[in-house]
């Protein structure tokens, strides 16, 4: 672990300007992943810029066209338990509460959730080759213990998965990420925010150095009547997903008017397939339809020595979660399957 300087930024401009005063400065918000990465000697910041106290940046507010804007600096807990989110975006609330622990959700921020690093064991082991940590060194997971790893969208350079629960719901909800940098502001569609590993697995997402996430916009459609988040993992709670599914549907009787399905724990970013969602339009909301959509979503999935089980697990989870979305209140706490 290295030593570093620390300052508390007074506003966004101050935070952005401070980044250039050191070679390896970094913003810190909740710090729940950053401090850990520093302790593992994976990050070597020479300056931490505390962005927890920026004025005017801690709200959840309604925006034009019926959507809601989440401050990036708000904690996961304050977001999940906010009345607007509980009422209009319960899928997001559920997904957030399926992740981490109560303590961590009280610390971790919305912006930080998007930027958390993979939990691939080899990424955290400085003695193991890892293209994400040390580009060109190889991927230890490819032929190693790869139970938690990707089955979709992986490359021969990296089979790590993105671990967030919150982002699986944000992907399903078509969220938009608002960022500010020295060159001004821009908006990134959620599907364009995180990347697949390809030849550059060291890059998790398309945020540029010197940019800061300021807020996340949720479009008006929240699927508050028929939604479900299912998280399957090696222990009952406080573990990362082997497979998770966020499902939101708009129904007309038992016919699907619109469906959204996003998978977590299976790829380098939340995984959606528009074709599978369009296929469901006009179909009956039943096991048969969900199973057909699941087959489409998992087409081309590739398992490795210890994670091939995830392909069948993901298909079953999509079906199960589709049925659970018909009766969201049947769900047990912690994104477990319905009783």
């Amino acid at each position: 672990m290295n030593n570093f300087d620390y300052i508390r930024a007074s506003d966004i401009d101050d935070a952005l300007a401070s980044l250039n005063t050191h070679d390896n400065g970094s913003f810190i918000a909740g710090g729940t992943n950053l401090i850990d990465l520093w302790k593992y000697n994976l990050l070597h910041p020479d300056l931490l810029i505390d962005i927890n106290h920026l004025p005017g940046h801690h709200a959840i507010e309604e925006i034009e066209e019926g959507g809601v804007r989440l401050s990036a600096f708000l904690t996961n807990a304050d977001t999940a338990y906010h009345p607007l989110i509980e009422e209009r975006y319960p899928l997001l609330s559920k997904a957030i509460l399926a992740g981490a622990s109560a303590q961590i959700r009280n610390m971790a921020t919305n912006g930080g959730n998007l930027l958390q690093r993979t939990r691939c064991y080899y990424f955290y082991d400085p003695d193991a080759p890892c293209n994400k940590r040390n580009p060109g060194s190889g991927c230890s997971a490819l032929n190693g213990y790869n139970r938690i790893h990707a089955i979709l969208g992986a490359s021969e350079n990296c089979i790590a998965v993105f671990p967030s629960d919150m982002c699986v719901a944000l992907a399903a909800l078509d969220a938009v990420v608002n960022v500010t940098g020295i060159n001004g502001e821009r908006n990134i569609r959620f599907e364009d925010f995180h990347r697949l590993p390809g030849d550059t697995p060291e890059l998790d997402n398309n945020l540029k150095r010197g940019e800061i996430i300021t807020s996340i916009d949720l479009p008006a459609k929240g699927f508050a009547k028929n939604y479900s988040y299912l998280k399957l993992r090696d222990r009952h709670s406080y573990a990362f997903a082997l497979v998770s599914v966020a499902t939101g549907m708009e129904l007309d009787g038992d016919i699907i008017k619109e469906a959204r399905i996003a998978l977590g724990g299976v790829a380098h970013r939340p995984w959606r397939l528009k074709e599978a969602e369009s296929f469901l339009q006009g179909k009956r909301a039943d096991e048969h339809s969900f199973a057909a959509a699941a087959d489409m979503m998992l087409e081309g999935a590739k398992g490795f020595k210890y994670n091939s089980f995830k392909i069948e697990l993901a298909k079953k989870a999509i079906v199960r979660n589709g049925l659970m979305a018909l009766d969201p209140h049947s769900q047990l706490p912690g994104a477990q399957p319905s009783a």
Partner: protein
Amino acid sequence: MIGISLNVNQHQYHIQVSPWVSLLDALRDHLKLTGTKKGCDHGQCGACTVLCDDRRILSCLTLAVMKNGANITTIEGISGENELHPLQQSFIDHDAFQCGYCTPGQICSAVSLLKEGKAKTREEVKELMSGNLCRCGANMGIIDAIMEVKERGLYE
């Protein structure tokens, strides 16, 4: 070194710390409040749980400098001078520990759980206590202890 003020258990402290000192190390090594335990030091066990401005957080993943001006409550500060907090008494009544190492974190976490008021059922209490591990396996006693305080309304 950076000078910071921490209000810990309603005492005001002014200390000089390096920026990389965790809140946990500041409490234990600078303030000699060793009730808060260092388990994994990586945010996986919950032994270091304290209340910061009335919310449970992990002191091992928090820098002390980030909490300049905050109000912290540790296990040393949750009860009155001569009496146990209802959760402390209930932990004793229910054999909610063996080695006791996770207990300060468990109790601080449970204090916060009851204040938050989000857990209505036993299942929800279990889910919202999952960030505190007990390697001795006293979990059933821990949940029993919390449920008794909750159901009898001894602390909210």
